């Protein structure tokens, strides 16, 4: 059920979508008290089409790791590779990466459609082409008919859908999500989790997902990386050996409960290793 080698089950020949070798992050001077080690050197591989979850207590470095994957943070040591190359090639066809924030992060002055269109506008796409792509993305996340609403006029869950539509509109290959549904109520979150699996299956997406929620991690993931803090590190990898598509029947199953129990135990271990 679990292995100690992250990525150890991957066939050795496939080029990973993302790979980290000895990657760590240090904030400030390590010899001074103000210095802080956010992440101990770690190795990580994410294969094509995988859904990998980073699960752990606050301060375990899961967001730092995700931000390094997005090129938003630079590691203090180690080597990062995207599709076997450097960050320069990211953004080319077949190597598109997109980051979904914890908050919807929409422009309040723009209506839903131009919000979704934004990445295409910035890339210089033609208006008609961008509009068509944005409408398709909105249709996919179930927001057809809301194109002309302002963000403040729709619910938090719908705002998050707009945010995901804006991510999907660029036809991404790797989706990095930082607790995207953390602020939503449980019912909305479960619904969006289910739909996320559907969208990723349709598009053949690779997803790295940061969450606090054990249930969400078990439901979504192919692999769960349990992290612990001070310094941030990967404590254990748990493979959720359950075929996709998954539905509510899986949520109510014995196997689901068993995975949750295992992760609860590991999280307790992770938390006790790090006195808050």
């Amino acid at each position: 059920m679990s292995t100690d080698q992250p990525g150890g089950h991957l066939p050795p020949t496939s080029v990973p979508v993302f790979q980290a070798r000895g990657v760590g992050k240090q904030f400030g001077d390590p010899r001074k008290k103000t210095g802080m080690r956010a992440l101990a050197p770690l190795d990580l591989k994410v294969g094509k089409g995988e859904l990998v979850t980073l699960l752990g207590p606050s301060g375990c470095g899961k967001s730092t790791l995700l931000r390094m994957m997005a090129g938003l943070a630079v590691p203090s040591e180690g080597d990062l590779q995207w599709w076997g190359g450097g960050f320069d090639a990211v953004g080319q066809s077949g190597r598109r990466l997109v980051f979904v924030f914890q908050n919807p992060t929409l422009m309040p002055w723009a209506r839903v459609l131009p919000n979704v269109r934004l990445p295409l506008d910035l890339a210089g796409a033609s208006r008609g082409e961008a509009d068509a792509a944005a409408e398709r993305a909105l249709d996919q996340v179930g927001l057809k008919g809301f194109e002309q609403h302002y963000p403040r006029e729709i619910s938090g869950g719908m705002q998050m859908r707009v945010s995901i539509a804006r991510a999907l509109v660029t036809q991404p290959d790797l989706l990095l999500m930082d607790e995207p549904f953390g602020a939503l109520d449980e019912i909305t979150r479960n619904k969006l989790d289910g739909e996320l699996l559907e969208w990723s299956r349709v598009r053949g997406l690779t997803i790295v997902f940061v969450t606090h929620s054990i249930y969400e991690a078990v439901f979504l993931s192919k692999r769960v990386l349990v992290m612990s803090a001070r310094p941030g590190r990967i404590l254990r990898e748990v493979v959720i050996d359950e075929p996709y598509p998954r539905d509510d029947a899986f949520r109510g199953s014995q196997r689901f409960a068993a995975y949750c129990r295992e992760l609860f135990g590991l999280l307790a271990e992770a938390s006790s290793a790090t006195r808050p």
Partner: protein
Amino acid sequence: MNIRAMKIFLPVAIGLVILLVWHWLVAAYEVPRYIVPGPLDVAQTLVKDWDLLWGSLLITLRVTVAALLISVIAGSLIAFLFVQSRWLEMSLFPYAVLLQVTPIVAIAPLVIIWVNDASIALVMCATIVAIFPVISNTTLGLRSVDAGLLELFRMNKATRMQTLVRLRIPSALPYFFGGLRIASGLALIGAVVAEFVAGTGGSGAGLAYQILQSGLQLNVPRLFAALFLITLTGVLLFLAMVGLSQLALRGWHESELLPEH
């Protein structure tokens, strides 16, 4: 009655009450009209001296609007420069503050001596007063960008120009309009103060000139009428700025949303 109607009705009602009390006090105590004229007296003077006052109003208004326009354009450009370079802001912002805290009455005589054209001197004085809130508010607004949106733009490889036009300027609009409201009032105050300093010897004959003259001649009703026109101008300018702000922010910004019931 709905909120919109109350917003108009309540201030108007208060105004009427004040006018009635004023009228009654002046009549009851038989105050001479060269000390405090009654509201009817002022209204009559306003009609009688309309040609004179209207001409003066136009002169003051021209100075005010010119100063406001220059403040908005120059102030916004300076704010853009400040946001492009921290060094520039650090070096120059203290001087903007210096200009703001020095009373305009103290600078105006110098400006009037240095600048030959009286109306240009007046516009300069009014601009010095009005430009600061535009600079400081717009700079603050251009910097008050949501950190997530800024990262989103960065990840999408947005150019500096795209980030300015699509992100910084819209984010700054609520702050800019806040500055504009203050600036509109200050431009009028600056224009009137500068006219006062230029004094009766000045070539302009704006409303401040009328007030000075009326004061010297003890023509208090006309003084009141001129004062009334200045106040009215200030209020109308303010309302115009509020209208502009509503036009630009309606639909998305909290400040322009009516409370929901």
